């Protein structure tokens, strides 16, 4: 017999009507809550808070490490009299300027690096040389060039943002697939348009990581820099607030300042970066 058997299947002929029946398996409430990242994170934060409180109490050394409750009391107190909000706002303003400029500068450097050979070498030499340098190395130059004002702090912030963002961006650019590069060049995209329309979106996960790290290091640097550049009467930022209260041995206030940094960090991570991630790399399927 040289005849194959063909069997027609009719059993799913009920067609469209059946197609859209989605069986949603109801999860128990706890599991449902747990599957929400927000809830899980809140639980983690609460556990950390609890650990702080307990450790603080056990340690019983309020001059070194206050309990969370003391810290929160100081926090509420300082929020109440407006000082903490004021200081945080002063810091955030400077931070945003430095961060923005850092990103712009990083963009310029990276674009040079990606488009010319000498630019690549320049970026590599500069990051290798300057990235490990502590801010202290820049202070004299900052003082000479920009004096004691915000500009100097911005300059130092630049230093902490620019190399990180540039390195991550460059490594992202380098990892863009050959095919996508060829596609971009096929459409005669060159220079900035090529970078903006092909490289940046294709390297977006790396860039985002660079931005996150740059943000964190901008904070660290800002708080350290505020000490060096001092303040004119009553206008310091969070760094100065922390320093001042340390000097006054008002340790709960010091930790209230640090708590403010933590809270801002959580807000920025979970609102800003998370949102960007959701709208971009997640949506584009570029992140598992």
């Amino acid at each position, binding site marked *: 017999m040289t005849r194959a058997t063909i069997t027609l299947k009719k059993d799913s002929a009920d067609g469209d009507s059946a197609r859209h029946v989605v069986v949603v398996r109801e999860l128990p409430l706890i599991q449902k809550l747990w599957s929400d990242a927000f809830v899980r994170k809140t639980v983690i934060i609460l556990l950390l808070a609890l650990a702080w409180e307990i450790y603080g109490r056990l340690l019983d*050394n309020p*001059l*070194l490490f206050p309990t969370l409750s003391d810290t929160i009391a100081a926090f509420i107190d300082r929020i109440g009299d407006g000082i903490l909000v004021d200081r945080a706002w002063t810091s955030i303003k400077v931070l945003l300027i430095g961060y923005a400029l850092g990103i712009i500068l990083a963009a310029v450097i990276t674009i040079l690096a990606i488009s010319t050979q000498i630019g690549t070498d320049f970026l590599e030499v500069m990051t290798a040389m300057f990235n490990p340098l502590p801010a202290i190395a820049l*202070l*004299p130059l900052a*003082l*000479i060039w920009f*004096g*004691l004002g915000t500009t100097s702090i911005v300059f130092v912030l630049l230093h902490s943002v620019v190399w990180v963002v540039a390195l991550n961006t460059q490594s992202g650019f380098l990892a863009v697939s050959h095919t996508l590069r060829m596609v971009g060049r096929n459409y005669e995209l060159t220079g900035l348009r090529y970078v903006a329309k092909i490289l940046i979106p294709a390297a977006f996960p790396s860039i985002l990581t660079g931005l996150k790290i740059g943000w964190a290091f901008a904070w660290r640097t800002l708080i350290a820099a505020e*000490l*060096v*550049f*001092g*303040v*004119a*009467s009553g206008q*310091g930022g969070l760094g*100065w607030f922390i*320093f*001042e209260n*340390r*000097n*006054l*041995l*008002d*340790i709960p206030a010091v930790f209230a300042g640090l708590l403010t940094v933590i809270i801002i960090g959580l807000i920025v991570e979970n609102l800003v970066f998370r949102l960007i991630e959701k709208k971009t790399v997640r949506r584009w399927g570029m992140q598992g």
Partner: protein
Amino acid sequence: QEKTEITITKQPSILYLPALVMQKQGLIEKSAAQDGVKNLKVNWRSFSSGGASTDALLSDNVEIVNSGLGNLLLLWDRTKGKVKGITTNSALPLELVSRDPKIKTLKDFGPRDKIAVPTVRVSTQAILLQMAAEKEFGKDNWSKLDANTVQLGHPDAAAMLANASGEISTHFAAPPFSYKELKTVPNAHVLLRSNDIIDGGLSQSTLFTTTKFAEANPKIIKAVLAASEEAIAFIKAHPDQAVDIYREISGDQTSAAELLDMLKQPGMMDFQMAPAGSMKFAEHMSKVGILKTKPAKWTDYFMPESAGLNGS
């Protein structure tokens, strides 16, 4: 043509109380106006350390620095005399506080007993300790206790001292830390005060500037001198009001009563313009090599305008 706007550095501590009074009451502006410099604007800028103030002076961002005496000496030496003092305005005692009952004199320090100083080797406290060691153990043994010193800022040192199991049992403290430690830490006792090491005490808060600025702005220098005098007089006459000014500007939450009590401790009202003990201090610094040139007399590193002070 004198400057119409100057910036003076300050550090947030009770040691610098006269400066706070000058700032609050506008004393420099007032004196300058009397001398014909109208509308002088004085900015006060807080710095976290003497080093930062020094950089600010060197980069022409501030005109006058209010910092420790050691800082002045070092800068005078390194700039070959281009920076000089205007006046000092406090000589409060620094105290070596220990909470270890076994330690009663310098002789009792074993190799494992750590002494906290703000900066090893070069801070006022570290040098005073060397001078004390020289007195105690003889001329060639001035560095005997250096190995025991560890570097720790005052707040951290205070916190460590409060920690009964901590490795730091002794702290060469400045007020108000010494006062607080003595009040709160069990067994805390004073081993040594700066006045024991240098008879008549040692100046702390010192105002200094570049000779270039001083030559161009003699009236401002005079105004600073006059304002210092007035501020010190005010503090002595109205300690309660001075304390209020301190609390307001520094943000210190310590009660006024407690601060007043602190000022009542021995030596704590030694606000004075005459440089105290500076030559002894300078001699030691040059002996151990920190200063490269040895001043012959205290007026070498103070402005001619200050020569009338009864310094030492």
